[in-house]
């Protein structure tokens, strides 16, 4: 903690400091507004207006060649909600979210458990390495997976080189590739969410169970796992919402043959120029997203509090 205290001076007692604050607060009553307004305006322009405009746009009607018919209709919503194709896209998106969520939890759990318990002096370094990929480009990481999974990629070259398979496995341009890529890309999020959710898990509890005669397996199923369930659940929900809205990885590793809501929104805008329809799809995605985020936040608050 930073202490700014000249030598030989005694720090103010908290009570004294509080009174002082009150006295100066009157003078600065409006100061906080001056501090807040630039930021609020910034978000208004870059965040609120675009979203509001998009919601309004979703009630317009799209005519061919990108012409937008100004009106107020629910047609744009009726189409995706009645057309079986969009039901399939939505279901595929959901299924992908669940698969990625489950797999991501499975591969992240041991790492999170290890980091939460570790007494090693390298713990903070290992934690940093686990989170650091968050700050690398999603495009670059997806490219890395294309190199690993592609027809001439690492996996196929190794397997054919070793004579295990003759024809390369199809690991890109399909849901398999997208799933593998997304699981890895969202691992840092899952690990972070789990570590934060492991609040009540402590090595002492596990040791206590062990010294009372529980087997290693029983310690895990009766103590470790139940106590880490909140972390597991929040990690799953987080990865789920991130997966259903992600664009770059389904686009690149899916190679056009994986259609999820995000890629559909992109195709509706750049390919078909059907702006109101794309807006309606976005609103639908936003509503799905919002519902799950609300559950997620309620959960994290419960765990935190």
């Amino acid at each position: 903690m930073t202490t700014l205290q000249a030598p030989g001076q005694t720090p103010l007692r908290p009570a004294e400091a509080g009174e002082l604050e009150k006295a100066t607060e009157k003078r600065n009553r409006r100061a906080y507004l001056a501090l807040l307004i630039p930021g609020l305006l910034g978000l208004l322009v870059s965040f609120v207006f675009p979203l509001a405009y998009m919601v309004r746009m979703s009630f317009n009607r799209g005519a061919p060649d990108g012409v937008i018919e100004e009106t107020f209709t629910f047609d744009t919503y009726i189409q995706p909600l009645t057309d079986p194709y969009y039901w399939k896209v939505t279901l595929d998106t959901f299924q992908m979210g669940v698969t990625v969520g489950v797999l991501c939890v499975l591969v992240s759990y041991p790492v999170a458990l290890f980091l939460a318990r570790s007494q090693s002096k390298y713990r903070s370094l290992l934690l940093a390495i686990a989170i650091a990929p968050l700050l690398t480009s999603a495009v670059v990481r997806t490219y890395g997976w294309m190199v690993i999974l592609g027809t001439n990629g690492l996996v196929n070259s190794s397997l054919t080189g070793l004579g295990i398979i003759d024809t390369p496995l199809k690991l890109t341009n399909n849901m398999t590739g997208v799933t593998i890529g997304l699981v890895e890309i969202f691992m840092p999020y899952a690990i972070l969410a789990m570590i934060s959710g492991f609040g009540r898990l402590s090595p002492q509890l596990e040791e206590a169970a062990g010294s009372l005669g529980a087997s290693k397996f029983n310690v895990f199923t009766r103590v470790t796992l139940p106590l880490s369930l909140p972390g597991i659940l929040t990690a799953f929900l987080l990865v789920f919402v991130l997966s259903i809205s992600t664009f770059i990885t389904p686009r690149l590793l899916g190679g056009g043959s994986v259609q999820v809501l995000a890629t559909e929104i992109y195709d509706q805008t750049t390919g078909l120029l059907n702006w109101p329809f794309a807006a309606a799809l976005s609103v639908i995605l936003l509503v799905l997203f919002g519902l799950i985020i609300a559950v997620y936040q309620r959960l994290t608050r419960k765990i935190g509090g």
Partner: protein
Amino acid sequence: MNEAPLFKPRFNAAKPAFGILVFLLYLFLLAPLLIVFVVSFASNQYLSFPPEGFTLKWYGMLPQESTFMNGMRVSLIVAVIVTVIVLALGVPAALALDRYEFKAKGAVQSFFLSPLLIPSIVLALGMVLLFGPLRLTNTYAGIIIGHVAITIPFVIRTTLMSLATTDTSCEAAARILGADSWTVFRRVTLPIIQPGVIAGGVIAFIVSFDEAVISLFVAESGLPTLPVQVLRYVENSADAAVAALSVILILISLVVVVVVERVMGLRKALR
């Protein structure tokens, strides 16, 4: 304590297995980044394994690739301006949120953090819809405004994090000793929030620099940023030529990671 040794063998048997599992999962987590390094130094003409030899030719080719160099220029300009703007907007807002009491404070704070809760594809569509009629698509202004929304939450969060660890008595002490508000800010508050400001700034920089979806929607045809150029390139072929560029992008991220870890800790800054 006779029991203790009894448990020992069981613990020892499980430990290495768990260690190996964690090591393999780390390998999986870092696989796409590690493979890009390997490929960028491999002399194979086309993407294939194993690497045939060591070469720096992919790096040597980069300066001649005008699409990448233009993209790099656009991304750097955007990221620098975005960083300056969000620091100017976000740091004062974080100060107001921590040092003042006012109605709806919780709501305002949630509002500042909320862009992170909106899928970027949705935001990107909203932006291209709004910016089109305003003639902001394919302009620096359009990309920069777009990136402000998604970077402000990081600056607010890291600055709040620095403020939360100190109480207001430092500022009060400075004031009672006769310092005016500007001096209090410059000599007391600024040093306190410095780690948060630095961490928020470099995170904002890298998030903007690496951002692909908003840039794709807002400026794909007229002012493609580097991630958009890479995306387009990789869409057509995942060959080795883009590996060298990817390594440079990873190294820039690494610098950011080290700075954030040093000044306030990666976990605190990103949670």
